[in-house]
């Protein structure tokens, strides 16, 4: 236990395989990854990719067929009880105790984890206030909305001060406002030092929250990296889009040919293509060019100069990054949902 303090790894998964009884294929098929302490790590993939099963093994509710896992340096199979002391879980669907009132759900959870009475009372009030549930503390949860249940489950998870928090599809089926609220809370928790492993099939969520993302499909991890690095995998994924405003009389092929030529001739540009032409929704007509390059953002200055040199106006310049969705399609040939 003392040695674990120096270990920078919060979660380690080695060659994990899980095949359920009577299943024809492995739900998790040789997965390995590590999560550093204090990191938000995301498992991204479609439903049925093996994300929830992977979490299940880590939270001791699924017995692996082979491979091993440790949480905070503790082997999950060998000492599940010690793991349970360090982790907290927010499941996909509400499993809140419907016989208890909101505040009791928190205090009893803490009592199951041996948190002394005074401490659990104080912590319950603090968390209910932080998660905007203070005025519901004596209610029962049967009529709670999805967002409120999710917030209460997060509060419950934090009652015993875990080191690692598992969030299984934390904002699935929530309205946009609740999603943003939860994302803010999740970031705050992480800033306070909590290690978070979340699963999601929402690229946006993975992109906005996670430091590193492992993309899973059919029980395997296809890639595992930061969002920015993943996006670089797509050829030409990094591009500069230049929107050029041209006067009415100049909507002629001569000017457009000249623009294309000079943009393509800029040093570092692998390819320049006209992606969109015609009248802008408002104002004078415009043409958009996309410049592909290794480091597209270094082109901002030279591209603007090149446009101005032809006598046209720069309307908009922005870096076009590939989305994780495109990364997923690139890797699997399928859409995520």
């Amino acid at each position: 236990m003392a040695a674990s303090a120096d270990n920078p790894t919060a979660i380690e998964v080695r060659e994990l395989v899980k095949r359920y009884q009577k299943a024809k294929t492995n739900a998790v098929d040789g997965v390995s990854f590590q999560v550093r302490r204090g990191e938000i790590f995301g498992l991204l993939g479609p439903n049925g990719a093996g994300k929830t099963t992977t979490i299940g093994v880590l939270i001791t509710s699924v017995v692996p067929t082979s491979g091993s896992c440790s949480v905070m340096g503790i082997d999950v199979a060998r000492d599940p009880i010690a793991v349970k002391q360090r982790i907290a879980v927010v499941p996909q669907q509400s499993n809140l105790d419907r016989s208890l009132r909101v505040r009791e759900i928190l205090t009893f959870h803490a009592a199951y984890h041996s948190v002394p009475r005074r401490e659990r009372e104080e912590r319950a009030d603090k968390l209910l206030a932080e998660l905007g549930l203070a005025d519901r503390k004596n209610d029962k949860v049967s009529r709670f909305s999805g967002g409120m249940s999710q917030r209460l489950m997060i509060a419950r998870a934090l009652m015993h001060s875990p080191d690692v928090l598992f969030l299984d599809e934390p904002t699935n089926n929530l309205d946009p406002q609740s999603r943003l609220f939860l994302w803010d809370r999740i970031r705050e928790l992480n800033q306070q030092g909590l290690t978070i492993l979340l699963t999601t099939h929402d690229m946006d969520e993975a992109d906005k929250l996670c430091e590193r993302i492992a993309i899973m499909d059919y029980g395997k991890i296809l890639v595992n990296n930061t969002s920015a690095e993943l996006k670089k995998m797509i050829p030409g994924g990094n591009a500069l889009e230049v929107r050029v405003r041209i006067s009415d009389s100049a909507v002629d092929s001569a000017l457009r040919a000249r623009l294309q030529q000079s943009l393509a001739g800029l040093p570092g540009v692998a390819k320049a293509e006209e992606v969109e032409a015609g009248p802008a929704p408002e104002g004078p007509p415009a043409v958009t060019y996309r410049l592909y390059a290794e480091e597209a953002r270094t082109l901002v200055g030279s591209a603007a100069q090149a446009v101005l040199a032809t006598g046209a106006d720069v309307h908009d310049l922005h870096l076009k990054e590939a989305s994780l969705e495109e990364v997923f399609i690139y890797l699997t040939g399928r859409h995520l949902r």
Partner: protein
Amino acid sequence: MQARSRFSLGTTAFLAMLRRDLVVTGREFIAFLLQALMQPLFFLFIFGKVLPGMGLAAEGFVAFMLPGIVALTTMVASMQGVTLPLVLDLGFAREIDDRLLAPLPIGFVAIEKVLFAAVRGVIAGAVIFPLAWWILGARYAVRSDHIALLAGVIVLTACMGASFGLVMGTVIKPEQISMMFTLIFTPLLFTGCTYYPWGQLNNIRWFQIFTLFNPLTYAAEGLRYAMVPPINGRSIATLPIVWVLVALAASVVGAVILGSRTFRGRVVS
């Protein structure tokens, strides 16, 4: 951080779960009592008052039947305390997941459920005595020299009902609940020697042997031994009390072992 031992953490979690169940049951105590006592109330009224009043049941019949009613009520109340909640919880509510993540071996989450349901069963069984005294009036007759044995058999019966409830609660799926009542409950009620003493079944020998496979038979006979007053100075004939205690204890142990396994099978995949 690690100052507290595993044992102390586990015990604290176990006691907190018991306290949770106490709080929840305490809030619905009246409903719980009504649920447990409705059936014995009518049994006592019809068989102890109405039928004897019409001359359709022998005067002594109710003294034989009262232990059967106590046994049945105790067992059913303990069983119901586990089976239905567990079927629903494992089927879809999954409220139990939070307790499964507490730092104690998951088998103890099941044991806690059994223990608490047994407490409910003992309460339901005990409340019959004042109820019977009130309804039966002069016909109420319970011998008072076997009080400790009486309490012991009630506790064993409750543990037996609760541990069978654990097995059923982990084996039955939500969509099979109505089938459970017809295929398991009904035979259990009528082959358990609750309404007739075992010894007098000897004219239907095969049925007499058949009833020995129902643990309720031992509960009812044990309570008859501990409750029915001697007639003309002689104690009534029942199954030997030692057999009763051994059979009840064995069924508790067997059902707890089996139930812990089936429970584990449902919560760990």
